[in-house]
């Protein structure tokens, strides 16, 4: 790796050491958590109705949100990457805003738009659609904070697809839809996998926007992070076990997701 004669591998060594330190930095909190939990406690928590409700709700909300992110984020990413329209820079900024806003602030912003007295929310309330304090509201909050991750990953991927490949397909007579399906999509597969994984992981861990916009009620809006925070205040041991359960589930799904989509 090193190009300097007489100092073989020094750069490699330094990078490896620093990289190793970074890995320890990530692993230590997890090891700390595991050391505080007991198998009996873990099993007991898994059987608790509160934990089960939170787990199922988290999966439901995060997966529905992921679907919404894909449905809305995929076209948005495509347009941002391929269509030069006036105000595109502003649009890009808007999309990345939820990543910069503290989640609670995001929740407050959502209330001002979709709350009962909000911009759109007031009109929605008249037709009987109320989002705050509902599971649908939790989905909205999670989608708001996690979609930017998918959009930005996909936008970069769309922009980096070799245009000659698509042009070649066009000259051979393929329709726009066909090009998208058979040339563009396979080319962005790894980025799609990464984007989905990031988006889903972010959504699963969402707390601030959910609690501010949708509230905190077991079985309706209390996702795992909210349940952990609750437990932390009254029963720290339960909180640790909850976190481990969440970690195990997310890790499994993340690994499976990345493996399936990026496999060629």
């Amino acid at each position, binding site marked *: 790796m090193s190009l300097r004669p007489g100092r073989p591998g020094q750069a490699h060594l330094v990078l490896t050491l620093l990289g190793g330190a970074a890995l320890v930095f990530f692993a230590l909190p997890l090891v700390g958590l595991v050391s505080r939990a007991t198998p009996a406690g873990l099993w007991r928590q898994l059987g608790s109705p509160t934990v089960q409700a939170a787990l199922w709700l988290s999966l439901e909300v995060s997966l529905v949100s992921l679907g919404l992110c894909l449905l809305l984020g995929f076209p948005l990413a495509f347009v941002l990457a391929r269509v030069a329209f006036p105000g595109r820079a502003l649009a890009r900024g808007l999309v990345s805003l939820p990543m910069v806003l503290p989640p609670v602030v995001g929740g407050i912003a959502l209330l001002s738009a979709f709350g009962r007295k909000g911009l759109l929310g007031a009109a929605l309330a008249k037709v009987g659609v109320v989002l705050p304090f509902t599971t649908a509201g939790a989905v909205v909050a999670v989608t708001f904070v996690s979609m930017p991750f998918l959009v930005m990953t996909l936008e970069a991927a769309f922009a980096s697809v070799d245009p000659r490949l698509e042009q070649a397909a066009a000259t051979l007579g393929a329709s726009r839809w066909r090009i998208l399906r058979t040339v563009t999509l396979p080319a962005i597969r790894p980025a799609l996998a990464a984007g989905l994984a990031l988006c889903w992981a972010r959504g699963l861990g969402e707390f601030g926007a959910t609690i501010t916009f949708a509230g*905190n009620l077991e079985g*309706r809006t209390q996702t795992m992070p909210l349940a952990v925070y*609750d437990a932390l205040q009254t029963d720290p041991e339960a909180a640790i076990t909850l976190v481990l359960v969440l970690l195990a589930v997310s890790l499994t799904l993340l690994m499976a997701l990345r493996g399936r989509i990026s496999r060629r």
Partner: protein
Amino acid sequence: MRATLLLTISLMAACRGEQPRELRVAAAMSLRGVFTGLEAGFEARHGVDVVFNFAGSQILAGQIAEGAPVDVFAAADEPQMRRAITSGRVKDASVFAHNRLVLITPVDGSVSGPAELGRPGLRLVLAGPGVPAGAYARQALLELGVSQAALANLVSNEENVRGVIGKVSAGEADAGVVYATDVTAAVVDKLKVMPLTVTVQPRYEVAALVDSPEPALAAAFVAELHGADGQALLQQHGFLSP
């Protein structure tokens, strides 16, 4: 280069020696107004910098149990102070104030009393059951005989009282139960406030931590709360005597 570095470090070390002593006070969120009110006077009289950490008492009790550096703990109920005592970091606590519970609704709300909390479709917001304010609220609802009906309308367990005030004053929730002292000038215009006639009386306890590096200052702060000036200020903010 090395000389500059040494000079900078020694200057920084010298500066550190001139910092005022610190008194770290962990206090329930509902005490924010009154504690910041007595901060300046206490700092001037004792030559100390008082650093506050305001949060739900249940969060503070947890932090104290985990060994957080704190000199004085003021909790909004006895169970949270008991957690601090169980952790071994507090020995004796004393009650220094009481509070009252009130029912709040948006200013244009249609709820006129606790009896209506069971109305179908009503959205009630309370602090969580593990939060002192939430525990007191539930006791009050039980005492009023509307507990089951009202809790069926519960839409959110907030992590502290401010969350309840926020949701009700924004009109997102139809009703909430908070401390009388939480209805500050900033929100009073957006709320309708109804006192609750219950025997439940939120009580505030304070204690100096046994491992505080500033035991005299901590004791002085506790004494200040019990003293005439402290009590007067508490009453000014709407608290009741111990």
